[in-house]
């Protein structure tokens, strides 16, 4: 039911390893905010837009995915226009849009399993200190994806029960049983996991 936001393709960004893309994003998050020259920022924005479209996502979907965030960027830039200067506003606009589009490009070209593999690699050194185990993280992610449909269905049943009794559907009367019933399952699910010896300590 939950599908990743990555799309099929063979663009340069697709072929780039996950780690490289993360480094690129991180560098941009810092680098962009050190620049204020519009003569550099504007072309960088154009480059990021081009990169995003080079993934093959198509203009409509590209816009659909980012319109909400871009709207907030416009708001923020507008605030800057009134509080500081047009130059500031444009700089903010360019920086944030560039970062957002680059980020969207990375998301569109990196699959979930590629991310999970990279996370496992990043966590490996931390495992030695006993903070967290890569196997636990991937198990946790799997569990979430596995149980979202069941929990959603359970919510539907709770709402149906409300309607059958003529009760108004309110957050408190629906969310409380949803949470209790869902968390109660934790014991049996944990037992099933332990019975299969998944988490050899």
């Amino acid at each position, binding site marked *: 039911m939950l599908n990743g936001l990555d799309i099929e393709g063979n663009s340069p960004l697709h072929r780039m390893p996950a780690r490289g893309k993360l480094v690129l*994003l991180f560098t941009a998050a810092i680098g962009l905010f050190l620049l204020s020259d519009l003569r550099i920022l504007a072309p960088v924005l154009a480059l990021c837009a081009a990169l995003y479209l080079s993934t093959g996502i198509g203009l409509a979907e590209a816009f659909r*995915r980012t319109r909400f965030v871009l709207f907030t960027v416009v708001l923020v830039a507008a605030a800057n226009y009134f509080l500081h200067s047009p130059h500031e506003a444009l700089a903010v606009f360019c920086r944030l849009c560039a970062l957002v589009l680059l980020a969207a490009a990375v998301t569109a070209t990196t699959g979930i399993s590629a991310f999970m593999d990279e996370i496992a690699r990043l966590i490996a050194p931390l495992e030695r200190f006993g903070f967290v185990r890569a196997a636990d993280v991937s198990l946790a992610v799997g569990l979430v994806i596995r149980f979202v449909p069941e929990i959603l269905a359970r919510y539907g049943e709770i709402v149906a029960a409300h309607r059958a009794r003529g009760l108004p559907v309110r957050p408190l009367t629906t969310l409380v049983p949803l949470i209790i019933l869902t968390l109660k399952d934790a014991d049996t699910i944990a037992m099933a996991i332990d019975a299969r010896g998944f988490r050899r300590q």
Partner: protein
Amino acid sequence: MTTRDLVLVALFAAIMVVLGLLPPITLGFIPVPITAQSLGPMLAGCILGARRGMLSMLLFLLLVAIGLPVLSGGRGGFAVLAGPTGGYIVGWAFGALVCGLIAQRLVREGQNEVAQIAAFVAAAFVGGVAVVYLFGLAWLSYATGGAFLPALVASATFLPGDLIKVGIAALAGRAVLAGYPLLPQRA
């Protein structure tokens, strides 16, 4: 970490995803509808406690980062985190942590109902509102080059909605404590 804790963390993150699929809560007297999902961090802290609450929010953050469309409205991926509201989403984890710490310290199972609700209100407000805003505004300031105060003022429009959230979360936290207590009690 016990398997049971791991499953609780995962199930709560899954609940968070489901909250994102529910329609927004509209109440006539507030300007902006409340997304059910924004209740998540407060519920996580009040119900699971500090450690598990924070971990469930971090797990949720991870799901967003790896490109699953789990944020309200089917959004996800790095774009949302990179945008102006990214800080709030990261703030959810720390908000749940602080909310949980306060709830764990103040709430006792033997107390009367009003005292428990008051404690949850305090926990939900400090963790779910103050801490989340701190992170949200920090990133917003960085992203916009320092306009902290105006952003803070602009956030005031969301305050009435946030106070309603605090109320709902506190009442829900108390109800879950009565029905299936999971909150660790630590002096």
